[in-house]
């Protein structure tokens, strides 16, 4: 199947304490048109770093040290700053965790939608305004006409995230990266935003969405496939059904076991014994072995590769060799 976004052997490092530390190690995956791919893991596992690597918006002290990211036929890892600026917002968009700080508080929300449209689509001001209003209505801002000139502080978190989404989809991007888009919101609002993303991007436009979250509940709600990350690596990859039905990797199993049976709760991932290793303290071999109930001697020495199983699920664990 063709892929929109192809991440190949991506390795990203941070400079800290006088040396470069790997935050993301040799990660590969494909995002297909019309799917929502979940990227799930505890905080610090490198999932947001993947997002910023793809967007090429890494902090000053971070760099992509190996691998490639392709957006269809464009190699993002080698694109010029100008080319990237043109791609971002037009073919490749992103929304963030905290919608209240993602908008510039000194400009009206209308302006912030309009400036995006004008940057990429060369619209005349009246046309841009019309289109911006339509977008605000599309994402469900009530009385969009009146609220066009309002400032971000006059909106709630949920409304702000809708506005951010309107901006992100304004130029019909092929790929949307959503970095914990609902973490800061109430549960009911969460579901509304997720369904909005599915409807507007996936169903109406056939775009691909990379949804980054630490919340398995979110994954179960909207994702088609999911990659489970641990300490900078993908440990298991498959469809939501297969992974929730038959988790293979001990880490995935632990994650699912930590969910309360009757419902889904946030923050539950922290219930696994032990701690996520920090960047400068990653164990040799399989990075999960110090916390793994099935750890054997070989796990301390060899890092297992991500291999495909018969059912199409991929897993990186010696238990399945």
């Amino acid at each position, binding site marked *: 199947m063709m892929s929109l976004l192809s991440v190949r052997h991506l390795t990203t490092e941070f400079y800290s304490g006088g040396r470069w530390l790997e935050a993301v190690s040799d990660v590969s995956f494909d995002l297909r048109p019309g799917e929502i791919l979940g990227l799930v893991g505890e905080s610090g596992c490198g999932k947001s770093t993947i997002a910023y690597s793809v967007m090429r918006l890494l902090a000053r002290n971070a760099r992509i040290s190996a691998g490639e990211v392709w957006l269809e036929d464009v190699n993002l890892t080698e694109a010029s700053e100008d080319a990237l600026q043109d791609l971002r917002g037009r073919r490749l968009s992103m929304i963030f965790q905290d919608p*209240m*700080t993602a908008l510039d*508080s000194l400009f009206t929300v209308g302006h912030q939608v309009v400036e995006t449209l004008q940057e990429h689509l060369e619209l005349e001001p009246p046309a841009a305004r019309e289109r911006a209003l339509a977008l605000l209505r599309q994402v469900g801002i009530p009385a969009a006409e009146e609220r066009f000139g309002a400032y971000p*502080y006059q909106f709630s978190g949920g409304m702000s995230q809708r506005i951010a989404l309107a901006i992100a989809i304004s130029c019909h991007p092929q790929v949307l990266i959503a970095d914990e888009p609902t973490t800061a919101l109430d549960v009911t609002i969460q579901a509304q935003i997720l369904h909005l993303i599915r409807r507007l991007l996936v169903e109406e436009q056939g775009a691909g969405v990379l949804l980054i979250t630490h919340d398995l509940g979110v994954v179960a709600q909207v994702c088609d496939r999911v990659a489970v990350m641990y300490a900078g690596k993908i440990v298991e990859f498959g469809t939501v059904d297969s992974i929730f039905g038959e988790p293979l990797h001990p880490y995935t199993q632990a994650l699912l076991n930590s969910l309360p049976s009757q419902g889904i709760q946030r923050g539950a991932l922290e219930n696994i014994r032990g701690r996520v290793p920090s960047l400068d303290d990653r164990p040799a071999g399989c990075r999960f072995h110090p916390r793994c109930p099935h750890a054997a001697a070989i796990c301390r020495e060899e890092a297992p590769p991500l291999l495909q199983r018969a059912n199409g699920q991929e897993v990186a664990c010696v238990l399945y060799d």
Partner: protein
Amino acid sequence: MSAAHSWLGQLVARLRGWYAASRSAFVGGAIILVLVIMTATVSLYSPYKPEAMDFMAPLSGPTGAHLLGTDNFGRDILTRVLYGYQISLAVALGSVGFGLAAGTTLGILAGYFGGSVDNIIMRPMDVLMAFPAIVLVVALTGFVGREISVMVLAVAVVYVPIFARVMRGSTLEVVNELYVEGARARGASHLRLMLRHILPNAIAPVLIQASILMGIAILLESALSFIGLGTQPPDPSLGLMLSEGRSFMQQAPWMVMVPGLAISITVLGFNLLGNGLQDLLNPASRSAAANRSDDLGQRDEPVERASKVAQRTKEG
């Protein structure tokens, strides 16, 4: 021999350590130390008296006999600069000393008691701060008299509200700390709390401020003397030398260059020291400012932060 060696080695190691800790503070401190020593001992090594006129060599450029030249009366400029520093430093020390003592007291009281005590102390301070320092100092010295003691007091009057503000701010930061609460719970008196528990923990920003204000006091003293309201001739003062030199600046540009450079170097020294101390004593100051609140307090926060920067850098 080896004992001397190890002693020297230790000294060098210690100096290196200081230099590594803060280059800025080290260089600033070194400049000030050298100037103070040279100034304090000038009568021991200078072949000239500051008022001694050499009628054979008026307006002489730099020569072997007069390293930085002479003025229109043939007085040795280097000697006069070094004697001039004595007055500058005396005014700076005196005014910062008075300002610091009074301002710190007022600031700690305002911050500790808060409420109406705070208002009674700080509102007049606001009024005092509404005046450009130099205008206040000009008025005070102009009317009261042109003696060094008046200059010291006038500059001190300008400094009191600055010190009070800084001390109040840093008192507010520590007054609710656990160790203060603990001492309070053990029944410590107000005075004891302020002197033993708050003062030592809140004084650092005041000392940084003091270093910067030393430099500004030197600027103020020379400015006053320059416009004729400070040190009077024939006493050697850097500002006065500059104003006297203006009439000769085409024939003898060193008459205006040397004293101006002398002032700049000193002030630079104090500013470097102050900046260095800022980094050493308060490394969190920069990252702490990065936390931006999003409530209505947003307005006051950058304002206060900016005013801190402003105070730190220049009071005029």
